[in-house]
């Protein structure tokens, strides 16, 4: 018979290893946030958020145009993706067993697994090369493709949560399918749909490769959708890989802003989701 003390000691040893693994993992991740915060806070102020970048060696300068560029391209992406994806999700919800629904679901899942770099190169070769220039528009298109699977899959899940008893009741009252969708299902799932869009926006805001390959970057304010456009992630990438200390410092400032926005979006989405689940 095995000694029970020995078995317990062995278990304790391995459990300590698990604690260590968790400690290392959580510490490394905390360390990343810590550095972003500490080095970013040193740079971020009002003029940093609102001015144009300055050339190397010139004091001041900021990320104003990148902030606006990111906002615009993510907004553009959402503008394209949200209606299409929610309409698509309504189709999946209304015709769950149809062949197209099965293909669309599979396509969405494939899309969610494609490296965003591939999406970037696709839009680069189809839009940038054909039109002859990098543009905010191409950036928005690339981001809409990145956002599409997140919005579609979350929307489908949220729509499905509207109970079938309510749907049947609505139909029994003589409402058409369309009326049922607009008056019952969409309002019922609105909170969940917003959560999905927020998560998609957070994802898109942090994308570098798709934007780099389609909108490149710019040192000026945005004046047209058809010109190269700055964005936060690309600015971080360029500044970080530049050899200049002040640019590198600015990369940390931009990273702080970007991470703050993304984390706030994610936390808000989770809190919203919690509220929705509690109400149900």
């Amino acid at each position, binding site marked *: *018979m*095995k000694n*029970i003390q020995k*078995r317990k000691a062995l278990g304790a040893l391995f459990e300590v290893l698990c604690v260590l693994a968790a400690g290392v993992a959580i510490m490394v991740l905390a360390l990343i946030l810590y550095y972003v915060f500490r080095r970013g806070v040193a740079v971020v102020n009002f003029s940093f958020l609102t001015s144009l970048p300055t050339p190397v060696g010139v004091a001041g300068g900021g990320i104003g145009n990148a902030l606006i560029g990111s906002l615009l391209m993510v907004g553009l992406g959402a503008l394209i993706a949200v209606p299409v994806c929610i309409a698509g999700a309504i189709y999946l919800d209304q015709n769950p067993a149809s062949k197209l629904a099965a293909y669309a679901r599979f396509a969405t899942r494939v899309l969610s697994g494609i490296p965003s770099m591939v999406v970037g190169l696709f839009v680069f070769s189809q839009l940038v090369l054909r039109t002859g220039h990098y543009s905010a528009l191409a950036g928005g298109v690339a981001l809409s493709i990145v956002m599409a699977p997140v919005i579609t899959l979350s929307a489908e899940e949220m729509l499905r949560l509207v109970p079938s008893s309510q749907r049947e009741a609505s139909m029994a009252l003589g409402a058409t399918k369309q009326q049922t969708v607009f008056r019952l299902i969409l309002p019922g799932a609105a909170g969940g749909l917003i959560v999905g869009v927020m998560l998609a926006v957070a994802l898109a805001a942090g994308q570098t490769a798709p934007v780099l390959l389609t909108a490149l970057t710019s040192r000026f304010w945005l004046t047209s959708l058809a010109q190269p456009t700055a964005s936060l992630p690309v600015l971080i990438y360029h500044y970080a890989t530049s050899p200049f200390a002040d640019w590198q410092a600015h990369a940390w400032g931009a990273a702080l802003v970007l991470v703050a926005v993304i984390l706030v979006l994610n936390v808000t989405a989770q809190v919203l989701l919690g509220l929705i689940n509690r109400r149900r």
Partner: protein
Amino acid sequence: MAQGVNIENFSFWYGPTQVVKNISLSAPERQVTALIGPSGCGKTTLLRSINRMHDLTTGTRSEGRITVGEEDIFSAAVDPVDLRRRVGMIFQTPSPFPHLSVYENVAAGLRLHGLARGKEIAERVEACLCKAALWEEVKEHLHRPGALLSGGQQQRLCIARALAVEPEVFLMDEPCASLDPVGTMRIEELIGELKHDYTVLIVTHNMHQASRISDQTAFLLNGEMVEVGITKEIFLAPQDPRTEAYLTWKIG
């Protein structure tokens, strides 16, 4: 081998809620003691206290004494891990390990405690399966996943698995709740066999079952023990009006 279980003034709390109230009960060795009562009366909680299963849940608290044989199970000298080997438990839902074969399910406890080696394991597995009245049905496919058996067979597999670690007491928490009548009958027959060697405490919702298989019956209501006595007497002539109400409502 078999040991009696003695419960003295035992109370139990989940957080602020008291679910077992000052219960005393003695389950003599080599007898079947049935715990009956409506849902939420504390019978399962009481049963799970006997092998200290509640240690795994935070926010629970207990008072009073429970002894298995001569030993106080809450004393510092008793290791709950070792206690659980000595006090076997069968659950409401059959729970064979899905990743293991029939054979390995029974051998799991042997390997865990190093109770057998090499050829010995095969012998012990066969013996336990025989004792659980399952050997004839599974000897041809010992190496198929245990989860592929029927519900009743799965439950007997769980009994064989518990037998393998040589317990002194068997705790059964509604072992037939998810079984069909044939499966139930086989388990009841098996319990009749087991009591020759073990002390059995069984929680059941089924009054007929309690009257068929138990020697002693305890009726619990709202965490309190209303009545305990020889099964025949309890069923034929309950002393407490609440017991009578429950039995007639249940049976009649």
